[in-house]
């Protein structure tokens, strides 16, 4: 449904009077593939999902010359045709022209553009020689050619081309130099229509002696090629990288730099993003009031104001955090620092059963799980990535703070521990810790059960440092924001209209107080219906309504309580809500809100996935409803059990 069919890529071979070819861009990770792809296609790119898997490819159009253009498809990075992950398998199948369920919809490329990092020739040539030997029509783009030259390396391009048996074009994608020659070369190879003669180069029995021999011989062959064509220089640029590394991976300064970088990221999305976010919220609430004031009161106006406008606002409000987080992620990735951060923290994260790269997504989730879950795409290993997604919502996000604050204001105000510590602060810290501890435990269990897999080798390239490329950064930011709005936004909008309908129907009639409307609505009935189930947690049906409506977003429970306690419009500050809450009584005359109820509710909010946006983004990132459904179910069970233990255990211990 959301996956854009890849058939759109296989456009007819003539667009207008121009000939249109298909070019697949492939290469090692960090070889400059993305920069070249962006330079060739510009900012107009399409993102497509492979059916059934979480791998995405981007495609764009590249004008080759007057007569022809090419649809360029960016394949996932790979080191070898011996694929170890699903991303690599897809790239391999396209490169070898294999039919598979994943590539069936991809056109067989007319030309394969292999991106080879000139500063790291011999390892890059491993994949290159594999692909060329398969008989595929290859053009080699020798990237970072300027860097190689500046560090004194000398590459005999013509000889290299002759040795490899494929045209080699040196390019500097950032400066757009060499791109014309590349276009001409690709066009002429495409026009020659060289038939691919399939050779099975890769033995599938990977641990066989035979394969070992092929591998060693291939490197021997590569060493021969580089001995003839490549002369090492003084390595100035690599020295700069080593100098930076001696600080940022230093035993003492390394962690200090890492903490500083992470604090900056966190501070930005937790705090500085609030300004544009409240701006968006204000604009949409103004718009909502404007609609109310202009249109006659009625169902349509309600739908528009409370359902649609609030829903659209609820989607767009995520954009500042997503844009800012992806700004940092692409800066960190593009500069080469991300690999260092994973290097520093891998040992710690492995103790938790997660990948080193899980740290940033989890940290981001303290601001909001939605950008956090989107950030998991930096984790290459699929199972580690899913495990990280599944535990990310346990990080206490900023939407839980209003809930904690209300509970503390209502039940723990001005209490202190040891005379100076505010009890409220202590409780909030406990809630954060609870989330972290549960996340570690769940990750541990997941990695030993449904996400169990033999650990893939942790071999991570530490690329040379580069100044981040503006186009790459902008591209990453806007692609992620666009995908969020298109793929997750529609789900969020639909659910928020549904949740609105739950409180708006059945219609209680005109001139009915909002509290009465909510109480008689489907949500109200549902609140009463679940009351027997939530009573052991200490909650009554009014809290039950809050649990249902807060599925829109956790902080919604505060405004719902405002409505069900009939606080009214003039006193929406929390103080009047707190007063009303404290006066609320159960049928037996005991107060509804006690410290124990407040703690039980907070525990519930730490652990339950009360957030449709999180589920929508998990659905989008995993490309299936299975994972979000699993997530919401297991988190609900955990939340229920923990709240039950809190409330019943607390009562046994004599708390109230």
């Amino acid at each position, binding site marked *: 449904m959301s996956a854009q069919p890849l058939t759109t890529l296989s456009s007819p071979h003539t667009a207008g009077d121009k000939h249109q070819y298909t070019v697949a861009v492939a290469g090692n990770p960090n070889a400059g593939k993305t920069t070249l792809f962006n330079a060739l296609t510009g900012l107009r790119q399409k993102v497509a999902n492979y059916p059934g898997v979480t791998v995405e490819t981007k495609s764009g159009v590249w004008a080759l010359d007057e007569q022809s253009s090419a649809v360029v498809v960016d394949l996932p990075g790979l*080191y*070898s045709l*011996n694929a*170890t992950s699903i991303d690599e398998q897809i790239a391999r199948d396209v490169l070898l022209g294999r039919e598979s369920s994943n590539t069936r919809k991809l056109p067989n490329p007319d030309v394969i553009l292999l991106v080879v990092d000139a*500063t*790291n*020739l*011999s*390892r890059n040539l*491993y994949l290159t020689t594999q692909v060329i030997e398969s008989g595929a029509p290859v053009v080699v783009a020798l990237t970072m050619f300027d860097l190689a030259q500046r560090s004194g390396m000398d590459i005999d391009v013509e000889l290299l081309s002759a040795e490899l048996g494929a045209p080699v074009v040196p390019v500097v994608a950032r400066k757009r130099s060499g791109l014309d020659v590349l276009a001409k070369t690709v066009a002429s190879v495409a026009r020659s229509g060289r038939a691919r003669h399939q050779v099975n180069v890769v033995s599938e029995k*990977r*641990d066989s002696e035979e*394969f*070992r021999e092929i*591998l*060693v011989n291939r*490197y021997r062959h590569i060493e021969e090629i580089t001995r003839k064509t490549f002369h*090492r220089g003084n390595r100035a640029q*690599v020295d700069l*990288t*080593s100098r930076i*590394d001696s600080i940022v*991976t*230093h*035993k*003492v300064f*390394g*962690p200090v730099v890492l903490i500083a970088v992470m604090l900056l990221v966190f501070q930005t999305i937790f705090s500085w993003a609030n300004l544009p976010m409240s701006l968006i919220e204000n604009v949409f609430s103004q718009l909502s009031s404007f609609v109310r004031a202009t249109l006659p009161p009625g169902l349509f106006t309600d739908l528009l104001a409370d359902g649609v406008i609030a829903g659209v606002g609820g989607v767009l409000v995520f954009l500042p955090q997503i844009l800012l987080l992806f700004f940092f992620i692409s800066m960190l990735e593009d500069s080469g620092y991300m*690999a260092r951060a*994973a*290097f*520093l923290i*891998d*040992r*710690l994260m*492995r103790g938790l059963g997660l990948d080193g790269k899980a740290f940033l997504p989890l940290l981001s989730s303290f601001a909001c799980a939605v950008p956090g879950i989107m950030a998991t795409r930096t984790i290459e290993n699929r199972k580690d990535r899913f495990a990280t997604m599944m535990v990310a919502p346990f990080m206490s996000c900023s939407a839980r703070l209003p809930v904690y604050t209300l509970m503390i204001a209502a039940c723990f105000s001005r209490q202190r521990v040891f005379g100076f510590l505010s009890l409220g602060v202590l409780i909030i810290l406990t809630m954060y810790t609870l989330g972290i501890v549960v996340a570690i435990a769940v990750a541990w269990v997941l990695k030993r059960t449904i996400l169990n897999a*033999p650990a*893939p*080798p*942790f*071999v*991570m*390239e*530490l*690329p*040379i440092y580069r100044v981040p490329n503006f186009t790459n950064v902008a591209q990453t930011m806007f692609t992620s924001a666009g995908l969020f709005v298109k793929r997750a936004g529609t789900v969020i909008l639909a659910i928020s209209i549904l949740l609105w309908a739950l409180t708006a129907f059945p219609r209680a009639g005109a001139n009915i107080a909002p509290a009465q409307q909510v109480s008689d609505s489907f949500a109200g009935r549902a609140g009463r219906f679940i009351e027997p189930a939530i009573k052991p947690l200490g909650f009554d049906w009014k809290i039950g309504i809050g649990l249902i409506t807060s599925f829109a977003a956790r902080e919604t429970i505060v405004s719902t309580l405002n409505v069900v306690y009939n606080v009214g419009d003039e006193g929406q500050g929390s103080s009047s809500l707190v007063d009303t809450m404290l006066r609320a009584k159960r049928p037996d005359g005991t107060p509804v809100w006690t410290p124990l109820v407040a703690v039980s509710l907070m525990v519930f909010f730490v652990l339950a996935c009360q957030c449709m946006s999180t589920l929508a983004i998990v659905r989008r990132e995993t490309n299936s409803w299975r994972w979000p459904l699993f997530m919401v179910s297991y988190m609900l069970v955990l939340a229920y059990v923990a709240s039950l233990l809190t409330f019943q255990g607390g009562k046994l211990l004599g708390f109230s």
Partner: protein
Amino acid sequence: MKPEATTQSDSQPLTLDNIPIGMWAHVLNVVGNGLNAMRLMEMGLVPGAPVSVVRSAPLGDPIQIRIRDYHLALRRGEARMISVILAD
């Protein structure tokens, strides 16, 4: 962590996880289960290739090595699969 006991106890074979930092060595062999060993070799760690350990992470693991013209991070468990001989 100790390297696995071997029969030739007098000349303990060196593995990439226990050579001194900064010193160059040559890869002798990559042992161990298929997939991991192959991936390491495909990354350029084939017999004869010069390699050196640049540093270890602050928590002792993983380690950063230099192989061919680039830097690679790998865990000590994987480094232990790579037997080396020190260069003169």
